[in-house]
């Protein structure tokens, strides 16, 4: 193993080591030590990832090739199936790794302050490090099986962290819901892997993607759609998105790390990673694009009426991931990855700024009980503002460039309807984000009953400021990112330069964004009466949207109720009349046979005698019959 391979392996194993150390040391570990271990492992991992990325960058720009694939040996050998353990560190994986370790480190740092008073402080960091490890495994793996291991692992970590406040019923239920939805996706990926192995004879990316051209489109479409099921569940896209808003029951750093920046983008990563499959399966790719664009618009409408600050952000996450999914489905893989990058910056920033607000209000999340906080929490306000303009798409903030790249792709790749969805969603995004901003920080005086105060904590403020800077300038990473990702998406159908901006489109989109901001400003700052009358006029549709189109109710009646009915029927009928009846019948038969045998073994002398007599009679009858039969054939009995 050369030094580079060892370095890469260490990046993967450091968070795991942290998680194991904190878990096993348990209560013997001082709280500070747990925080130091968790943060230290991530910081080192991030720096090492940076070294790898820079080395690769330098090598590539000076015309050298650098190894991307590192094999460490065979993991499982079941002839003819051979699964090796190897890591694939290409620009795509590095993009995700940098975000996972970098933003992950910032969020860990933020957690030091945010979770300071929690009694399960060490557990929290152990879970967070476990999450980072599994997420890194997911993106670094060089084959589908280890990807699935990481895929399941992030689901587990997500489950543990959503249910972190396990004494809250709603948190436990939300965790369960997330796990069930994610397992549906895991099954999809598993089936996809089976199909891949059946059709392509390997689970390693290099083999699979090299042989893709030799397999027919129907098989690839099936694989693509099953992979999409996994991606949809993990990335909270329609129709498996309902767990994401509920997942906001977890601590805010969890929402920032898992349910905004990293885990929920695993679906985007998966589809980008499998770009050769989708390039050869246009139907599956089209479905991905439709799901993404629809989810973007769908979630944006819901975001407009929510009152929980974190739920608004959750729906906006779903909406932004819809953009990414659309991009990778349409073939604009680079644009999707770029939007992932900027989104990780500004969405983590928004969650962490919201976390500061929530903490300073003593846990209050309802924006109807906020307002007028701009002056009371200046840092939270300014950083939240930067995040808001970044997500809304105001130049020169990060979101402007990445969203423009996605919309450009929609136009360039001829998706007029889906492109329209995205543009409407962009308008709505600007509207609901500024609605959130106004309701939280302006719109008159403070409406809640707490005592808003700002008590600055360095560990919370530093990451927020760093992310605010990144959200501001992140858009300018387009050029290097585009150049780097071109190395990954070799031979992709569409080659898009995300660094060039299609100015007419960008200008049009920006006008819509301004219109959205203006609408929010009008309704929430200038004319609250207008808003009231609008709410009255649109009471019906508003009710529909506020309840997230009643999808939870639909699932309740479509899945939960029949499932319970089947289970009840099984318990009532199957259990009683079949499962229990079989042993009962068996025992009854045995008892009857035993009773029959017992009746003969009565100890009664006369009954024994009768038995002998009957036996004698039967023997006599047998003898007479055979003798008579023999005599009738002329043979005399002897």
């Amino acid at each position, binding site marked *: 193993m050369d030094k580079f391979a060892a370095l890469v392996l260490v990046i993967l194993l450091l968070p795991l080591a942290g998680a194991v150390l904190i878990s096993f040391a348990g209560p013997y570990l001082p709280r500070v030590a747990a925080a130091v271990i968790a943060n230290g492992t991530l910081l080192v991992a991030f720096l090492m990832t940076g070294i790898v990325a820079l080395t690769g960058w330098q090598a590539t720009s000076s015309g050298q090739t650098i190894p991307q694939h590192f094999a460490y040996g065979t993991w499982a050998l079941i002839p003819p199936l051979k699964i090796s353990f190897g890591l694939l560190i290409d620009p795509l994986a590095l993009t995700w790794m940098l975000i996972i370790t970098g933003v992950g480190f910032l969020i860990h740092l933020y957690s030091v302050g945010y979770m300071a008073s929690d009694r399960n402080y060490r557990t929290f960091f152990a879970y967070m490090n476990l999450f980072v490890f599994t997420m890194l495994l997911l993106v670094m793996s060089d084959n589908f099986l280890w990807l699935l291991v990481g895929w399941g692992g992030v689901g587990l970590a997500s489950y543990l962290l959503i249910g972190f406040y396990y004494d809250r019923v709603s948190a436990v239920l939300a965790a369960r819901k997330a796990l069930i939805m994610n397992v549906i996706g895991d099954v999809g990926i598993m089936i996809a892997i089976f199909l891949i192995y059946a059709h392509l004879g390997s689970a390693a990316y290099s083999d699979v993607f090299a042989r893709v051209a030799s397999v027919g489109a129907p098989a690839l479409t099936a694989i693509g759609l099953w992979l999409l099921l996994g991606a949809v569940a993990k990335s909270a896209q329609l129709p498996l998105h309902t767990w994401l808003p509920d997942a906001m029951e977890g601590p805010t750093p969890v929402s920032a790390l898992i349910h905004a920046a990293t885990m929920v983008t695993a679906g985007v990563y998966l589809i980008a990673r499998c770009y050769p499959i989708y390039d050869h399966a246009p139907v599956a790719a089209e479905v991905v694009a439709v799901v993404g664009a629809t989810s973007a618009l769908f979630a944006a409408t819901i975001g407009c009426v929510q009152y929980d600050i974190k739920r608004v952000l959750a729906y906006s996450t779903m909406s932004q991931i819809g953009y990414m999914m659309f991009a990778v489905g349409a073939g604009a893989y680079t644009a999707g990855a770029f939007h992932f990058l900027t989104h990780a910056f500004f969405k983590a920033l928004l969650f962490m700024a919201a976390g500061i607000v929530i903490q300073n209000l003593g846990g209050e999340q309802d924006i109807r009980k906020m307002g007028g906080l701009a002056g009371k929490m200046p840092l939270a306000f300014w950083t939240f503002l930067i995040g808001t303009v970044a997500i809304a798409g105001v130049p020169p903030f990060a979101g402007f460039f990445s969203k423009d790249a996605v919309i450009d792709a929609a136009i360039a790749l001829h998706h007029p309807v889906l492109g329209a969805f995205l543009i409407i969603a962009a308008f709505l995004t600007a509207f609901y984000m500024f609605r959130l901003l106004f309701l939280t920080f302006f719109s008159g005086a403070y409406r809640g009953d707490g005592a808003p105060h700002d008590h600055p904590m360095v560990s919370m403020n530093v990451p927020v400021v760093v992310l605010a800077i990144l959200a501001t300038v992140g858009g300018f990473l387009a050029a290097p990112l585009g150049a780097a990702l071109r190395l990954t998406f070799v031979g992709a159908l569409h080659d898009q330069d995300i660094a060039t901006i299609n100015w007419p489109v960008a200008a049009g989109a920006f006008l819509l964004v301004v219109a959205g901001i203006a609408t929010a400003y009008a309704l929430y700052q200038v004319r609250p009466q207008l808003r009231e009358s609008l709410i009255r006029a649109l009471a019906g549709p508003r009710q529909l949207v506020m309840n997230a189109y009643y999808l939870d109710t639909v699932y309740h009646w479509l899945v939960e109720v029949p499932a319970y009915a089947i289970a009840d029927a099984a318990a009532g009928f199957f259990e009683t009349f079949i499962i229990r009846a079989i042993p009962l019948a068996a025992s009854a038969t045995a008892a009857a046979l035993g009773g029959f045998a017992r009746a003969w073994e009565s*100890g009664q*002398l006369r009954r024994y005698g009768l038995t002998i007599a009957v036996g004698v009679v039967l023997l006599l009858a047998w003898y007479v019959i055979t003798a008579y039969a023999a005599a009738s054939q002329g043979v005399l009995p002897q």
Partner: protein
Amino acid sequence: MPQVPLADYLILATVLFVIGLVGFLVRRNPITMLMAIELMWNAGNLVFAAFARNFGDMTGQVFVFIVITVAAAEAAISLAIVVMVFRHREDVDVDDISVMRG
């Protein structure tokens, strides 16, 4: 002096045997049952003797002698058992004695 046919002896013996058998199965007094057994022994003896004459062979008669001896031994032991059971309980019904029940 006309001979009685062998078949008549055999059928007479069968009738005696069946009477003894039915008596053994139907009665519940152990002493009566033992007497029914004696009837069956005797039916068997009659068959041996009849065949002995039929074949002009002494073996059948010797066998009857041995059967009589064994029957005597059997009667002695059975009656001893009955005496013991009677000593233990005043009223003896064979159906009440089922300690050999499986």
